[in-house]
């Protein structure tokens, strides 16, 4: 890619440094911004709604009390929060499994076993969704047409009236941003070994 057009920089986001510095307003802001994603992760994985809410609460409490261990240079705040949430979800699933054994012993009643998708996949999805939302409008719009409407580059050019070459460049840049972000913030960062498609 030669002489890439300079995309406008996203607005300066000082949430992460403020969070690290212990600015209480930043905790609320982080919750407003990322509470949805953490709760989604928890509700995707845990059958019991109150467990999911509790994990969400515990995630933000742990993040706030442990903010000294967050290094903004190593990843985003949402990536870090989802990492904490993911481990708390797994702890909770293990605890429920133990509890279910108790239940069966005491009352011969089985609680519904926790069900759900791979937590890493849910985290990766949320990270990609977050990055998609940060992309410049043109890039996001075209990727959404490709992802959600399964349109080809040519069809996107037709639908949007944007020249094919421009569509290509938006999609290529958008994909590159998503990939970079996924490699930094994904649940198992770094490119997966070839031939393991969908195996995670």
């Amino acid at each position, binding site marked *: *890619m030669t002489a890439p057009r300079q995309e406008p920089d996203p607005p300066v986001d000082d949430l992460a440094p403020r969070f690290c510095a212990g600015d209480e307003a930043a*905790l609320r802001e982080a*919750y407003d911004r990322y*509470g*949805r994603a*953490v*709760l*989604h992760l928890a509700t995707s994985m845990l059958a019991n709604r*109150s*467990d999911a*809410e*509790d994990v*969400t*609460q*515990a995630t933000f*409490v742990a993040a*706030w*009390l*442990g903010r*000294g*261990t967050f*290094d903004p240079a*190593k990843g985003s705040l949402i990536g*870090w929060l989802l*990492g*904490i949430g993911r*481990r708390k979800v797994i702890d909770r699933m293990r*605890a429920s499994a133990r*509890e279910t054994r*108790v*239940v069966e*012993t*005491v*009352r011969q*009643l089985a609680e519904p076993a926790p069900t759900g998708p791979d937590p890493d*996949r849910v985290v990766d*999805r*949320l990270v*990609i*969704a977050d990055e*998609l939302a940060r992309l410049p409008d043109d890039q996001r719009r075209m*990727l959404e047409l*490709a*992802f*959600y409407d399964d349109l080809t*580059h040519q069809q996107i050019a037709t639908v949007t009236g944007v020249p094919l070459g421009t569509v*290509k460049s938006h*999609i*290529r840049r958008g*994909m590159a941003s*998503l*990939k970079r972000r*996924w*490699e930094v913030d994904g649940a198992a960062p770094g*490119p*997966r070994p*070839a*031939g393991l*498609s*969908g195996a995670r």
Partner: protein
Amino acid sequence: MQHLDHDRLVFLALGETEADNGESTHLDNCAHCRVELQALRQVAGLGVETQGLADLPDPPEHIWQGIVAEVRAAEAVPSLTEARRQQATEPVTIVQRSNGSAAKPHTPGASGAESGGRSRARRRGGWSRWAASTVAAVAAAAIGVVGTVSVLRPDDPEPAPTPAVLASAPLAAFGSTPKAAQGDARILQNGQLHLHVANLPRVPGYYEVWLINPTTMQMFSVGTLGGDADALLPLPPNVDLKSYSVVDVSAEQYDNKPAHSGDSLLRGTLTG
């Protein structure tokens, strides 16, 4: 070797075209392009799955209130990180302090966790005598859990556990109890069990709180609950929370039967 054009890789990743013969040959022989394509395919697959994630519902406000309450409680005591720093400089050992007191945890099979708790418990030199002599089992239980997590994920960026709460358990409605009933149990650093309950069904008798060992199903009563939403119950100083890890709230009758009625209203498992 000329790598495949990046636009082509994106096309292939989005499934717009199939690789032609030349491209397939190149991909077979070029790890760089193969890895790049693989990553782009993963990203494209994830991209497809993000539909709807931009419009997730707001979390309920009570979660936020819970966060604030827990943060306030935790900030009222020194952090575990600070305590660990003290540990490095304080040569006092818990072993000496607990000699002669009745507080040795006697958990068969928990020796590993116990010794971990003991070494970490050195930092508790500044605590009350109670803490110095008796909290080893509680600490062992809580730290045992943390230790396991660290081993599983050596680069675990998870922050240090909250200092005020050594272990906690969300309590959920059990059995036929209305689902609105719920609560939280927290083992506080001072050896108390903080219980918060909501929407417990009315019972003719009273509520009783238990700790249960899920392996052996042995249990003991921690106390009774009054009409308040919150209760602080002292735990036996030598309790082994690693074993007695299930918190249970039962409905009991004034029937001269001190054993658990079998009618559990809330239940949850402690985790560190």
